[in-house]
């Protein structure tokens, strides 16, 4: 743009966030949102809603992993608050795995955290009833209008004027029953107006069995009796929040946990879902449903028809990414510039990340750091290295684990890495007796033409033999163009590794080629049958191993439960010591001076420290190794498997460095907090605020040097022994846990900053 500008300098601060997983509490005014078409559409829908009283909206946000669905949902919540202030009541619910009963529980629990919202609505009904009882009285006209406007407390008015309270409350109950069309809810909500029922009512609302004093009042079934009743209960809340000067906004994120093409709800649930959406619409509420695209496909068309607008998260364009990088550097460093990136590099980043915002952001973070280390601009080569090493790398482990699992389940065995016709193959799986075989090639992301050419030449060579099948697994990104070119030689789709669903994809592909090779082999039916039987036997013995092992575990559980309880309590005693020991300098058990920090901040630190819980797991394993029982053997196996890898040693170092860095960071924040001064409005003084920002910056800088995912990898590795036999479902849980651990640490400074600053008055705007 301008050749005479001064040479750009790198900042100590990395302007990009290390992880990009949206969380409600972490998205603030400073978060940069890329204004894509999808976001503009959604915001327009929201603005229209807020401007026009009455009708509600159901907005569906669909998109693949990392395309910014949650970010958009949270952005909408923030935007609504900016426009409408306190008059919009908001609730954010992460859909759990399970069914609508679990969703209702999550919903009700978020609501239970904000009981005042429900209480305010019930009081609103009470105020209306009291005002109605004064209808026509010129003496009471003023107080009645104050009650209706929410400016007078009905409880206080009834008390002060000596009004007939019981009849009024009976009337509230009747009205709540009428509008919710649910007798139990009418009764329960009314009880909130009576002294001493709050806890019992909330216990029931969040899905527990009703207490005796609620049963006496006709509330006999839990709200979570069925999916139907749970959905009905959610509708009740939408109706409860109808009217008045408030708008009700609910985000249900990750709806694909409940709804997917393979998990299609049955008829009755579809009807309840339809009623739920209708309930929100007629209640004038704004409901946001976010999830993977196939959650929509699981809905019947009449349910889908209730969605008033659908937004599909499109991949980022290169131009979007350029704007993001500029905006981010502007907000973090105060310089609106693209350097160290160039337009060409950005378009390459967008290309290899498939335009996924999460992936783009992660790459930007890593690339910025690398460019700063090398004191030069980001190059295409750098992008390739970073993408492979730091980004796709960790997935390979999980890929291999899934492949091995699937092979075991099929009763197939594989030789280790082999060269076949001069091609290095990862798995060589003989089928039958005539030399037929399946070969599996596992590759990282294929990022450029030369990698693709090599892969294609391998596949062609392997496919030279008629009785050989080739499966190609790609551990990272593969552009659509490359996918097409690979398909041509492979005669089938390459299998892309994704955290969820890979095992199922691989399983299906394996079954397909297995059947084909069986047919080839069937030229000699007897031999084919023999081979099949052998495989069946292998499969059975694998299953038997698992059953026997499980039986052994159950038995040892039953016979030694007392010992185990003692063991558990010992472990619990050890945990605080381990954590405490790392917090203090000389390993003394004295608690750190954390008492001076607000509890919320302390909790943020504790969560980060505990996120990986590697010490506990490792020390338990080490202790078990020396025992004399079945667990000792499996502990030894797991430790051997882990320590044999040099990566484990590096990872342990990373864990230690993370600990020490976090510990010093905590100490610095604590010391700063003790001396921080405020003005008479409780706002931080400028120099103290600057000092705080400097502490955060130092932490972020050094955090940037640490390979957090190595620690996560170790945690995952160690967790492996616990649940290696529990199949693929478990794998996805573990992947989630792994990500959470990384986020916990990656987002630490952000959360500390939010929590600490929330303790001080903010600068009054304008």
């Amino acid at each position, binding site marked *: 743009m301008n050749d005479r500008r001064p040479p750009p300098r790198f900042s100590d601060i990395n302007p990009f966030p290390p992880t990009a997983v949206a969380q409600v509490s972490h998205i603030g005014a400073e978060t940069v949102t890329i204004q894509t078409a999808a976001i503009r559409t959604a915001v327009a829908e929201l603005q229209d809603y807020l401007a026009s009283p009455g009708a509600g909206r159901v907005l569906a946000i669909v998109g693949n992993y990392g395309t910014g669905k949650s970010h958009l949902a949270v952005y909408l919540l923030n935007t609504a608050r900016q426009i409408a202030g306190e008059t919009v009541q908001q609730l954010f619910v992460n859909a759990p795995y399970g069914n609508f009963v679990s969703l209702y529980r999550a919903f009700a629990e978020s609501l239970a955290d904000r009981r005042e919202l429900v209480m305010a609505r019930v009081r609103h009904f009470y105020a209306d009833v009291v005002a109605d*009882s*004064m*209808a*026509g*009285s*010129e*003496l*009471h006209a*003023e*107080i009645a209008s*104050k009650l209706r406007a929410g*400016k*007078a*407390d009905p409880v*206080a*008015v009834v008390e*002060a*004027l*000596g*009004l*007939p*309270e*019981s*009849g009024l*409350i*009976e009337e509230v109950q009747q009205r709540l029953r009428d509008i919710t069309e649910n007798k139990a809810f009418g009764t329960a909500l009314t009880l909130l107006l*009576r*002294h*001493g*029922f709050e806890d*019992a009512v909330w216990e029931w609302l969040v899905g527990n069995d009703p207490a*005796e*004093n609620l049963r*006496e*009042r006709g509330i006999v079934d839990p709200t979570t009796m069925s999916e139907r009743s749970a959905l009905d209960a959610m509708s009740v809340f939408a109706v409860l929040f109808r009217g008045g000067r408030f708008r009700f906004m609910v985000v249900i994120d990750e709806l694909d946990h409940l709804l997917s093409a393979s998990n299609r709800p049955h008829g009755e649930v579809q009807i309840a879902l339809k009623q739920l959406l209708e309930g929100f619409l007629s209640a004038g509420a704004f409901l946001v449903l976010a999830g993977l695209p196939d959650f929509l496909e699981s809905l019947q068309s009449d349910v889908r028809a209730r969605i008033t607008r659908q937004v599909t998260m499109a991949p980022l364009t290169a131009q979007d990414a350029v704007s993001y990088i500029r905006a981010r550097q502007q907000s973090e460093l105060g310089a609106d510039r693209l350097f160290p990136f160039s337009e060409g590099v950005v378009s390459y980043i967008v290309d290899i990340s498939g335009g996924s915002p999460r992936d783009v952001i992660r790459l930007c973070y890593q690339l910025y750091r690398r460019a700063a280390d090398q004191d030069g601009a980001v190059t295409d080569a750098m992008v390739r290295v970073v993408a492979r090493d730091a980004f796709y790398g960790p997935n390979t482990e999980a890929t291999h684990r899934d492949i091995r699992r699937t092979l075991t389940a099929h009763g197939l065995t594989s030789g280790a890495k082999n060269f076949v016709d001069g091609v290095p193959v990862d798995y060589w799986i003989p089928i039958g007796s005539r030399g037929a075989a399946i070969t599996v090639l596992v590759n990282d992301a294929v990022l450029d033409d030369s990698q693709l050419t090599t892969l294609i030449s391998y596949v062609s060579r392997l496919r030279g033999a008629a009785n050989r099948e080739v499966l190609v697994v790609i551990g990272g990104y593969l552009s659509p163009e490359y996918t097409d070119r690979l398909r041509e030689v492979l005669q089938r789709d390459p299998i892309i590794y994704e955290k969820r669903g890979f095992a199922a994809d691989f399983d299906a592909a394996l079954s397909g080629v297995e059947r084909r090779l069986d047919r080839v082999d069937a030229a000699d039916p007897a031999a084919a049958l023999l081979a099949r039987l052998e495989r069946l036997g292998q499969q059975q013995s694998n299953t038997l191993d698992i059953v026997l092992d499980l039986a052994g575990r159950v038995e040892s559980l039953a016979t030694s439960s007392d010992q185990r309880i003692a063991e558990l309590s010992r472990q619990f005693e050890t945990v605080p010591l381990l954590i405490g020991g790392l917090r203090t300098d000389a390993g003394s058990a004295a608690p750190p001076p954390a008492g001076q920090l607000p509890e919320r901040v302390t909790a943020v630190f504790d969560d980060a420290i505990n996120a990986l819980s590697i010490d506990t797991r490792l020390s338990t394993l080490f202790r078990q190794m020396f025992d004399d029982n079945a667990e000792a053997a499996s502990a030894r196996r797991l430790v051997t498997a882990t320590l044999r890898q040099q990566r484990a040693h590096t990872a342990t170092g990373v864990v230690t460095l993370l600990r020490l860095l976090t510990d010093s960071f905590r100490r610095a924040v604590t010391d700063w907090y003790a001396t921080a001064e405020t003005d008479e409005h409780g706002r931080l003084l400028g120099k103290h605020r600057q000092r705080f920002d400097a502490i955060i910056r130092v932490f972020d800088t050094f955090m940037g040097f640490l390979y957090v995912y190595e620690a996560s990898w170790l945690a995952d590795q160690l967790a492996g022994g616990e649940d290696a036999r529990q199949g693929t479902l478990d794998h996805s849980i573990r992947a989630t846990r792994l990500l959470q651990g990384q986020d916990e640490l990656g987002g630490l400074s952000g959360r500390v900053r939010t929590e600490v600053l929330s303790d001080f008055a903010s600068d009054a705007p304008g």
Partner: protein
Amino acid sequence: MTNPFDIPGQRDPLKPLNPVTDAHHDDLFIDVDNTKQAFEEFQSILDTDYAFERGGAMAIAVGDRQFGKTALLNRCAYWMQREIKARATAARKKTTAHIIDLRFLAGDVPAALTAPERVNTVCHHLMKKLHDSRHLAQPWQDEGQREANLVLPYLADKLTRDAVLIVMLPPTADVIDELVVYANLIPKRVVMLAETSFVGRLEEYSARLKRAATVPVFLRLGVLRPEDGEKFFNQRRDRHASDRSIAEAAPEVLRWLVTVKPTSVGELQQVLYGLYDDVLRRRSPAQQLTRDLIADFYISRTRFGGDQ
């Protein structure tokens, strides 16, 4: 000038009248709304020849808050105690009625407790009171006993020979199962006086109450009739007939006051007492109780939620 709505001998003029503790109050009852009829219905308990030898008795005052339930029951208890004494004297008997007031328990038996918990707590305190005031022929042994149905039915045999009990129960919760329990367990020589403000709920229970071992008498109280305002005012005013400084009511103002919206006797007492209290405090007291004066009073009393 005196406030004609002050209650002599009672610090809080908004508390229910109670001739049991202050016999002067017996003259202050005014026949407004349904109180006279309710009182007469209560008196019928003694007219039938129960005499408490064959069974117990129960009366339930029904009406919302401030409708005068507590005062009515106080009046009933006072009357009954004296009536029993008069009849005993005439028949040369020593029968004596003791009033056991358990309404102080209202805070100990909150609505959030279940009905059995409430009944058992009340019953426990009843026994303790009887023991302490020596109305039991034998000392009460089983202090740990908390189950009402293991105690109440046998109470008559444990009372001193000539004792009759008038038990005043704490107000019910919105769940009024406890009334059914009492109605089924009341022994002879015991009268229970209960009150509930949950008029709507009582209807749901009426069938069960009518089938109970002791069928209760319902004393229903409602809002004031249009003429009640003036009647109430005049009777209170007439007690200070010679005091010329007391402001008179403008014509029709009291009828207007009690019909502007449904009004209870408690509300009326509260407003009139407050009004005269207000009038008294002024530097130049008003000479007449007018609509404007009342409206001003309401505005000053209903400044809830600020913007004064």
